[in-house]
């Protein structure tokens, strides 16, 4: 398989830790949202520890803050989380072992751990990147949720003023970049991005990611000779 560099583990660790730093402002923002929704500190912390999926947490607690029903909140969280199914399929070969261990490792399945976890072709390195990404983000996410919920009443725009919201897409771009070494990967990436762009106005958040998987249809069929 081509299209991905095989970064050394020091590089994977650096990517994982940078990802963790990138999500810090979002953890703070989630903590703040929990204050607005009148969640207790324990409840807020439990969301970040037990659900551990940013998009779903924001969606569900956002619905609760706006006065929605538990059913609406849970549905929103699940809908946005559908892409996690696709991530699980991508990461499955690297997350082997006894069933309980696989479930435990799967708890760390988020955008960023999947992204670092697919940076290598070697399965052991994939698991390494995934676990480093997942665990460092777990720590940072839970710490910042606690801090955000407990202390942040008054300065919610700091993260935006510092441009910190741009660090997440930039980090995804930096992880995609080394995978663009073949024409096939470039075509698939462009297709995936276009599909997502088209779907964003048409579907709730999270769904465009799932639909973008269809971008792999832009790949060559096996009978065609390679032309790159």
């Amino acid at each position, binding site marked *: 398989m081509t299209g991905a560099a095989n970064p050394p583990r020091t590089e994977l660790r650096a990517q994982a830790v940078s990802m963790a730093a990138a999500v810090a402002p979002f953890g703070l923002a989630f903590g703040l949202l929990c204050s607005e929704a009148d969640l207790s500190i324990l409840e807020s912390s439990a969301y970040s520890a037990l*659900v551990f999926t940013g998009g779903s947490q924001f969606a569900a*607690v956002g619905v609760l803050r706006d006065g929605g029903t538990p059913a609406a909140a849970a549905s929103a969280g699940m809908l946005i989380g559908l892409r996690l199914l696709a991530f699980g399929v991508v*990461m499955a070969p690297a997350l082997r072992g006894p069933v309980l261990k696989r479930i435990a490792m799967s708890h760390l399945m988020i955008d960023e751990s999947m992204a670092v976890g697919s940076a290598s*072709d070697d399965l052991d390195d994939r698991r390494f990147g995934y676990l480093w990404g997942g665990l460092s983000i777990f720590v940072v996410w839970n710490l910042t949720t606690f801090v955000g919920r407990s202390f942040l009443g008054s300065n919610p725009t700091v993260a935006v003023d510092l441009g910190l919201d741009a660090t997440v*897409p930039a980090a995804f771009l*930096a992880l995609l970049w080394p995978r663009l070494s073949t024409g096939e990967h470039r075509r698939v990436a462009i297709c995936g991005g276009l599909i997502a762009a088209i779907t964003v106005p048409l579907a709730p958040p999270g769904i465009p990611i799932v639909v973008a998987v269809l971008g792999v249809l832009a790949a060559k069929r096996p009978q065609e000779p390679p032309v790159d």
Partner: protein
Amino acid sequence: MTDAGLVLLLLGVGILILKSTGPVALGSRTLPAGVARAADLVPAALLSALIVTSGFAAGGQSLTIDARTCGLAAAVVALRLRSPFVVTVALAAFVTALVRLVSP
């Protein structure tokens, strides 16, 4: 139990099921070659989609070109210059903040 607590329980279980279905159902199987090839390409599509949604949509249902776009453009330049990961990401934040500072 509060509403928030109920949602927490539902999502806690539901989300874990979504996350672990792939590894639990597929973990001990070797994927056939065609599927394995597709799985190699899927992250490229997923990452690209994540860039679009987190860089241009961010939780809403519309795409906008704003200061983040400038930050992403700076990230592209940094990557073409073979900058390290941390430098690329920090530069994106810096340029985004700068654009926000100077725009009306």
